[in-house]
Structure formats: C-alpha cells, structure tokens
C-alpha cells in the first residue's frame, strides 16, 4: 500500500481544480474525484466575468477596499469580513495568474485586458472572456491539472461519485481520513484513504427542480457531509438570478453582463399590452429598475432586481402579455458590439428560443441560480482582521478536522447575496489560498498517516454504503423518484425562493415530510448493477430531501429580511437578533436539523442601511407582499 501522505479533492470545477494545482505544487499527490469529466463541470456555465480592482478603476477612486466594501454591502453584511478582505486583495493577482495560463481575456485596442460593468458596482472591475468566462477559466485550470496529471502528481477519478466521508476517532478526537466513492459506470463502491479531503462540489440548484444549474448540482455531496456530522450554514440564502430563459428541462442563464454592457429591463406601461415590443414607443415602456434606482439602474444587485421583476409581474400584473416575463433589451447596442462582448449568450438565446436578441428584446424571468449557504467552515483572521493568516491549516476547514469545503459549497464570502462575477473569484481564491492551508495541515498537523489506520474503519464505511444501495435496489415500492423529485422542486420553488413567509414555509416542511415518507417506498425501474443512473438519482434524492429541510428550517428561524432572504411577515433587516450565521447540525436520532445562530465578524465595516439609492417608494412600487404558489 502507498504510504505517502495524500489529499482527496472531490469536485473538478474551478475550486477543485485550483485547489488541486496548489496542493500538487506543495508536493502532495492529489486524487481528484468528479462525477463528470472535470472539463464538463458546472463552472463552464458561468458567463459574465471575474471581479478585481484594476489600474483604470484605481484612477477613478476604486481599490481593493471598495471591492471589499461592495461585496459586504451586496451581501447585506452577513459574511465574515476577514476572508472577504483577503479574497479581494488576491483578486488582481488571480487575474494575472489566469492571464499567464492563457485565458483569452477580451482586449482593448492597446492590448490591455478589457473591463465591463457588473451588478452592485459603479466601477468597471469585471474581467471577461466573451460571455463564456467560466468556461475559459475552467479550461485554463483543467489544462494545468492535465499537466500535473501527465507528471503523475494528480490521479483523476472521473465518473466517480462521492458517497460519504470516512471519519476516524482516536484520543485526539474525530477526523476525516478518506472517502467512500462509487464508479457510476461499473457501480463499484470502494474506500480511498487520504490525510485530508476537500469538498468542492458546487451548489444545490436541483433541489429546486428547474434552475440555472447543471444536472449534477444536487447538493448531495454537501448533504452527505452534513449527515455525517459537518455543519451546514446559511442554507436559506439561495440566489434567484433575475434573468433566466425558461425552458422545458432547465432555466438557462442570461448573464448579468447583458445588463452590464447596457441591456435594459422593461415592461409595457399598460397591462397585457400585446403589441410587438418593437412597436411600443419609448414613452410607453416602463424601465422600472432605472426609474426606481437612478444610481445603479439595471445593475442593482441580483436579489433586488429579482424582487422588482417579481413585483412587476406578480403583484402589479405588468409582465409581458400579462404573464410572468419581462423584456431584457439589447437591440439598441448593435450586432457587432453584441457579438464581440456577449457572443456566447446571444448564441444560447438564439439556439434555445429561436429569436435574435440583436433584433428582438429577450423575454426573461428569474430562476434559482446559486447557494450562498453551504458547509460551515472556519478561518484564522490576522490580528487586525484585515485578511486571513496565510497558510493556516484551518482555512475553510469544516467542524470535522481534515474535511474542507471550497467554492460554492463553502458558505463564506457572499453573505446574504452574492454579487455577480464574485463567484469565479471565490472559487479560485479558495483553491489557491486555502489549498496551501490543506497542504500545511497534511504535512505539519497530521501525525498518523491514513495508510497506518486499520482497514476495518474503511470496510465498515463501504458496507454502510452498500446497504443503502441494496435497500434502493431491492425496494419494491410504487413511488417514482422522478415524481418525488419534481414535487420537491415545485414545492421548494413556490415556498422558499423570492418571497417567503412563516406560514408558507411551515406548509413546505409538512409537504417535505410527506415526500420523505414516500421516499421510503420508492421502487426503481432499473435494478441492474451497470451504469445505473436511476439508482444514482434515487440515492441523491434522499440527500436532497435532507438538505431541503435545512434550507426551509433556516428560513423559518430567520425572522427578518436580508439579501436574498425576504420574509413578507418580517420585511425588515433585524441586526440585533439576526446579524448571525444560521448553523444547522444534523440530529441522527430525529433525522432533522438542529439550528443555532453564530455571531458574524463585522469588525471592519459596520453594517449600514442597504438601499442602493432607491428613490422613495410610491404605493405602486412597494415590495412584494404576497406569497403566490405555482
């Protein structure tokens, strides 16, 4: 058996790949697990760009500090400030690194990296590669990992699904010493040993049925860690992106860069105006974001834009054709400009809707997009709170020693609402900065290598997973996992997205308990043991149901409105009681989350009112007041 210390990375998106590179660079072998070939990870879907202070913005009065302040303000002050402070200071260096890796960032005539405007900022500080920035960043990291792989320092386990963390308890306490994983083609289940495990498995959009997420973003990996004892934080903070294209199988993202580059959101001023949008004169168009937020206009942060669109459609009935749809208009920008700056997303709209956004305003509606919440993690702040201690072994470590969370599955950085183009940054930052901490933990803190541990720990964990599979395969119930999954998505979308209330959330908890009951009697149409996607989905569904409860319960307990979490029964922010992280602990006896609140480190920027210069609200433009079900 190989006795060398090693690290397991679960997930091959931006966070997982950046972490893999950093840890391999520190001299440790990395076993990289992914359900899909890493080049097909969900990070490819990110479109708009990546934020960083830059020379031009600096000359206009912008700096890392403003990036920091914007991120905190955008997140409604819910995030711990030292990690954000560190991240924004790394941002310009990360851009340089990506540039050196060959990312084709758009260029100005003087060959400088071009910049665009993005939500929540009045400065151009978003770097981009067409409108497929996430894809380009992912490919650059994928290429670097392939280079390490060619040197034998990284082993990829693609088409392997993470099933459970292996925990070992000795005199010094509990720690993570490996994982159980399954090859989703051969269905082989086996244990893998490691000194540290990093979970970098992204978000959980599939819990909401249709979302902008890829099909593997079920949140199952996070849920399994939670059920194994890792805490889950701020689950109730789910970002609903204001502009998505509704589809039969998913909601396709229409990037915020469309607005950053000058796109305008509007509806006809008259209800159910059925004219062709091109025939509606300027003075009969309601540019509601520009009117209400003269300072930020169409680039208000996502939670605000989403609530305004929701209000226009649902409460005021002003949606296009009387339905739930508004126009996102790019027709005034000109085809050449659109192709150069937004080519990728224009193409998506053309392919999936069949209309040309250069000629006709796009029809869009909000869609579930990102989870600000995730596995609870720790960090060590510098003494003056300005940043994190470099190389600290607990950087983004969960409450289980040796188990880390990077990227979207980590709850840090974005608070109650993430700013556009900060996600790519946080993922890569986690990988690079905290990857060093993982290496230090393995090299300096771990004294007993996993190779010396008794095989029985691993065998027991494999058996436990085999039992779960056997139960699903041998189940003879009549319930369909796909039907339960669809109902879960509809209920979660109706109860726990743009507008929430205690009564509706309680109703959803009840519905969820019924679904959990029905889940006990599911039957699979495929009981074979070769590439059984039916089984994989059914197993993930059980974990999605557990995580859904965390999301709902967090929403019930948080009796205030903050960022993406908006409660009709508690419409205001309540710092006295809720400037706190929601932490959910799994209770194995009841199968339910136990919630406690933890203070937030706000030592650098004191909380202030978050208005984005909104003009005084008239009765017509009040915030949403009703919960509406599907």
């Amino acid at each position, binding site marked *: 058996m190989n006795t060398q210390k090693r690290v397991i990375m679960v997930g091959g998106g931006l966070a997982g790949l950046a972490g893999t590179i950093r840890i391999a660079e520190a001299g440790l072998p990395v076993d990289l697990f992914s359900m899909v070939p890493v080049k097909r990870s*969900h990070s*490819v879907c990110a479109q708009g760009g990546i934020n960083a202070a830059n020379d031009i913005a600096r000359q206009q009065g912008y700096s890392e500090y403003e990036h920091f302040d914007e991120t905190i303000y955008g997140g409604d002050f819910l995030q711990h400030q030292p990690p954000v402070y560190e991240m924004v200071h790394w941002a310009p260096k990360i851009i340089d690194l990506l540039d050196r890796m060959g990312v084709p960032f758009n260029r100005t005539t003087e060959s400088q990296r071009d910049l665009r405007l993005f939500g929540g900022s009045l400065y151009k500080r978003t770097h981009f590669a067409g409108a497929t920035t996430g894809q380009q960043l992912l490919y650059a990291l994928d290429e670097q990992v392939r280079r390490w792989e060619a040197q034998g320092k990284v082993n990829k386990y693609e088409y392997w699904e993470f099933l459970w963390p292996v925990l070992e308890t000795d005199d010094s306490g509990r720690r993570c010493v490996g994982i159980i994983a399954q090859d989703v083609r051969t269905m082989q289940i086996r244990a893998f040993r490691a000194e540290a495990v990093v979970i970098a498995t992204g978000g959980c959009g599939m819990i909401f049925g249709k979302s902008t997420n890829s*099909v593997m973003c079920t949140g199952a990996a996070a849920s399994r860690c939670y059920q194994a004892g890792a805490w889950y934080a701020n689950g109730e903070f789910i970002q609903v992106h204001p502009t998505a294209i509704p589809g*039969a199988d*998913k909601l396709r993202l229409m990037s915020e860069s469309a607005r950053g580059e000058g796109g305008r959101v509007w509806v006809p001023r008259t209800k159910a105006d059925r004219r062709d949008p091109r025939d509606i004169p300027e003075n009969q168009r309601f540019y509601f974001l520009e009117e209400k937020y003269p300072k930020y206009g169409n680039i208000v942060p996502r939670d605000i834009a989403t609530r305004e669109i929701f209000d226009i*459609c649902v409460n005021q009935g002003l949606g296009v054709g009387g339905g739930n749809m508004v126009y996102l208009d790019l027709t005034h920008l000109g085809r050449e400009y659109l192709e*150069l700056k937004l080519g990728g997303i224009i193409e998506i709209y053309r*392919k999936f809707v069949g209309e040309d956004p250069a000629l006709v305003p796009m029809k869009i509606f909000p869609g579930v997009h990102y989870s600000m919440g995730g596995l609870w993690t720790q960090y060590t702040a510098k003494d003056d709170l300005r940043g994190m201690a470099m190389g600290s072994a607990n950087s983004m470590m969960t409450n289980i020693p040796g188990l880390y969370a990077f990227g979207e599955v980590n709850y840090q950085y974005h608070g109650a609402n993430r700013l556009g183009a900060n996600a790519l940054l946080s993922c890569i930052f986690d990988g690079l900065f905290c990857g060093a901490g993982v290496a230090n933990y393995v090299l300096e803190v771990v004294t007993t290598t996993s190779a010396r541990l008794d095989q029985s720990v691993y065998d027991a964990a494999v058996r436990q997973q085999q039992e779960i599979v056997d139960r699903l395969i041998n189940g003879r119930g009549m319930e369909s996992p*796909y039907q339960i999954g669809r109902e879960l998505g509809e209920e979660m979308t109706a109860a726990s997205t743009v507008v929430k209330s205690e009564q509706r959330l309680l109703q959803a908890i009840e519905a969820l308990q019924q679904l959990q009951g029905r889940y006990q009697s599911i039957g699979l149409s495929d009981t074979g043991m070769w*590439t059984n996607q039916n089984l994989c989905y059914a197993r993930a569904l059980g974990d999605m149901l557990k995580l859904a409860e965390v999301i709902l319960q967090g929403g019930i307990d948080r009796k205030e409105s903050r960022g993406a979490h908006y409660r009709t029964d508690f419409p205001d922010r309540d710092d006295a009681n809720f400037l706190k992280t929601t932490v959910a602990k799994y209770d194995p006896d009841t199968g339910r989350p136990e919630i406690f609140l933890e203070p937030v480190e706000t030592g650098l920027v004191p909380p202030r009112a978050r208005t984005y210069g909104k003009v005084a609200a008239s009765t017509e433009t009040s915030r949403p007041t009703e919960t509406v079900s599907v």
Partner: protein
Amino acid sequence: MVAPTTEALQTRSVRFRIKRQDRPGLPWRWESFDVPVEPGANVISCLQWIAANPRTIDGRDSNPVAYDAGCLEEVCGACTMLINGQVRQSCSCLIDQYAPKDGDVMRLEPMSKFPVVRDLMVDRQRLFHALTRTKAWVPIDGTYHLGPGPQDTPQSQQVRYKLSECMSCGCCLEACPQYKLEEHESRWDKAFIGAHAISQARLFNEHGTGNVLASDRLETMIGPGGISDCGNAQNCVKVCPKDIPLTESIAAIGRAVTIHSIRKFFTGK
C-alpha cells in the same frame, strides 16, 4: 415564487427510436417510446420524461435510458449523440425543429467512434488523452504572483478565444472518416489524434508562453496518428457546434509542421 409563463400548451406525441445496449460486450437493440412533447421541448426533456415513464410502445416495462448530460446549455459538451444520424448536442436539439409533426420519429444513437458504456453514453477518454499528447497547456512557472501574462492584441485574442471554445464534445471526430473506433488504450498514441487536438496545438502555439512547447507539439503532429492522417474530408468543420475554424487550424499546423521539418533537416534540431 411562480413559474414563468409558457405559451398555451399544445401537447403532441413524438416517437423516440433509441439504440440501446445494456453494457459493453452485449448485443444492442432498438427500443421505441412515444413521448408527449410541449413547445420548447428538447431531446433532454424527452429523455427525462422517458426516465420517469419507461414504457415502450409495445407496452413493455423498460428502464431509463443512460446518457451523459451536464449544463444543458451547449457549453459542456457532455450530451453529444447521434440524432437522426447527425452528431450534435442533444440539449440544444429542439423537437419542434427536428420532428415538427405529430407522430414524427426521432432516432437516437450513441456516437460510433467511442466505446459504448451503456445506451447513449460513450467513453470519450481518448479525446482527453489527445490533449495530453498535444501538451495542450501553457507551461507556467507556478501559481505564485509573477505579474501579468504576455500582452495580446484584440485580433489575436479573438482568434485564440474562438479556438479555446472547444468543449471536447467529439463531434469533429464522429464526422471524420479517418478517425476510427479504438477500443484499446494501447492504440491511442498511434491512432489519428483528431481535428480538435490539432486545433488545440495551434491555440497553444499561438500563445506567448505556450509556444515554448511548440516543437514538442509539432513533433507529435509529425508522428504516428498526427496531421498526415488527416484526409482533408473537411467534415469536422461542418459539424462543429461552436463553429471553430478546424480546417484553418489543420492548414496552419500543416504549414508549421513543414517549416519545422525543413528546419530540423538543416539544423538537426
């Protein structure tokens, strides 16, 4: 929250004829399913429907069709398959365009140039291996901060960006008459490397730092399974979903290989 409005729903039925194989080594068969489709439906939404209702047209209980899928936005490359004989991504394949009438038939098959894992899912590992063969990366010194990368003109950026949009889907390989199914990994280093990898060689040879490995890449292109295996059928460029100028890349690498060979002949390096 409420659901986005869709147009008045008119459901009609489309017949899906799907080539199925339970696992490698077992015989394949056709299975047909009648799927109700709504406007805006695509092949993925129909496969999702079949997964939830796996009953064939003869009323026989079947099981969900195995297939690869990821982003469903035609940017990850996962869901590539043959649809009515044409290779493409299934997510961007709208039923209304392919089967506009009630009762129309859609034929789904796995790609033929890669080993079938199950049903519509194939093993495309060879495609990624070709990227290793090509050294398709920029050999950076490491992740420590060393300032920006080489400057790039907007013109050059536009060329590189287009090439860099390759999502390793394999359409160009499926359409290529020179690219043959290779079941065994041992053959991968000798068999044709494919248009996508040749284009990646061009991408990295055009980068200011990436070009330090230019000769290595050209050596691979001169070697077995390299550019001389290209038969110039030009099918690749016709099926590329991202409109990557693959034939231009092949021509560019062809020229570079010639120059490289002449230089090597005279200078010995």
